[in-house]
């Protein structure tokens, strides 16, 4: 009996000490981790705007970001809120969640986006794209030219897909195929960009709306197709203004 008590007590002590130590470390390292994650995100935004250069240091990224990228807060009707601080937006990357919750809290639902500003002109915008893959939620950004139709770039910064299969979505061979594709069809209504099953040219879809798929990752590919469309849909009111040149 004593033996059992000792064993239990020993196990409890080990758990206690380990958890205290780990929480202390996690708390202490959190600011540095958040800073690193933000820097990584900003680098991705720069890359989706084709503003990255070989061998940029973290200082270069910061200054380039401050110089040519503007953070914008809008609501679902496309209204811009210059007074709301960008960093204070919670869950600004979860536009898929917003789609399902739209009816419920349309009032306080704010969206984020990035503008690429050159010589005082908005030359492109990047919107967050979020949606389900096979195992995980995919998080990324898609940049559209100022016609709010032509894709300027796409990037994924967080996901938990299978390395070598679904995780290929972050590889350049996949993302570079999106550049130059159109999200609107000829009549001006939303079409999105479809990730083909197999080669794009064998899919029978219009060439400006389809990219090569990833073999062995059909569900991830379908997820990318859906999330591109859903997220453009969500930003459509804002994008429509952009098309008219009203931003």
């Amino acid at each position, binding site marked *: 009996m004593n*033996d059992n008590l*000792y*064993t239990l007590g*020993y*196990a409890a002590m*080990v*758990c206690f000490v*380990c958890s205290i*130590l*780990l929480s202390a*470390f*996690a708390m202490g*390292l959190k600011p*540095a*981790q958040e800073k*690193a*994650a933000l*820097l*990584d995100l900003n680098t991705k935004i720069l890359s989706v705007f084709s503003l990255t250069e070989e061998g940029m240091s973290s200082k270069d990224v910061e200054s380039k970001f401050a110089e040519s990228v503007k953070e914008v807060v809008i609501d679902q009707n496309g209204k811009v809120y210059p007074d709301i601080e960008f960093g204070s937006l919670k869950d600004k990357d979860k536009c898929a969640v917003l789609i399902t919750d739209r009816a419920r809290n349309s009032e306080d639902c704010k969206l984020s986006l990035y503008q690429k500003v050159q010589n005082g002109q908005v030359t492109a915008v990047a919107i967050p794209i979020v949606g389900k893959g096979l195992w995980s939620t995919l998080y990324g950004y898609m940049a559209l030219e100022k016609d709010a139709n032509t894709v300027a770039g796409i990037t994924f910064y967080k996901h938990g897909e299978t*390395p070598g299969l679904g995780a290929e979505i972050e590889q350049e061979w996949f993302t570079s195929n999106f550049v130059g594709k159109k999200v609107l069809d000829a009549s001006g209504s939303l079409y999105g960009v479809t990730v083909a099953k197999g080669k794009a040219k064998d899919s029978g879809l219009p060439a400006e709306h389809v990219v090569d798929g990833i073999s062995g990752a059909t569900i991830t590919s379908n997820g990318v197709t859906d999330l591109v469309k859903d997220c453009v849909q969500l930003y459509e009111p804002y994008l429509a203004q952009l098309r008219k040149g009203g931003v």
Partner: protein
Amino acid sequence: MGLLKSLPKEISDPLVENNPIATQVLGICSALAVTVMLKQAIVMSLAVIFVTAGSNVILSFMRKGLPSRIRIIVEMCVIASLVILVDQVLRAYLFELSKQLSVFVGLIITNCIVLGRAEAYALGNPPLPSLLDGIGNGLGYTLVLCIVAALREILGSGKLLGMEVIPQAAYAMGYENMGLMVLPPGAFILLGLYIWAVNSLRGKPGE
């Protein structure tokens, strides 16, 4: 070999004679996964050295009071805590690398070398030799990882630590990078050849 002799036995033994990868064939999973580039392999090795050494020392201190019925669980608990610690530090200061290493940092927990050394050595020896044993085995792992990673990076991408080492002239003459080396089978083949070479040079273990 003179240099090896001058080192404590706990460190020199696992480097060559009783290398955890080449002789005991432990820790193969991560050795295959993170050897595409030398930089990743080095960071991974440092993490493994830290974890083996740290868990060996801690468990060696605990060895007298440790109830033997739950010893494996306690060992895992200590090892897991150390691994999480490493993971958190990497995320804070080496974000890009920690993304590339992804799950393999977390999988150090299941690296047989760590639990193997805790079970086989730390539980029966005082802290200082356990520390040396942990460092030694970590270095043994490092040695193999770095050799394989360096070969894979040179053959597969023509680079070493991200710098071009194959001259452009060679490419102009028709040399091509070996795509196989970037893929997991490349690691299998190189590691197999390495183990074969080491074991045949040295004679079969125990002979």
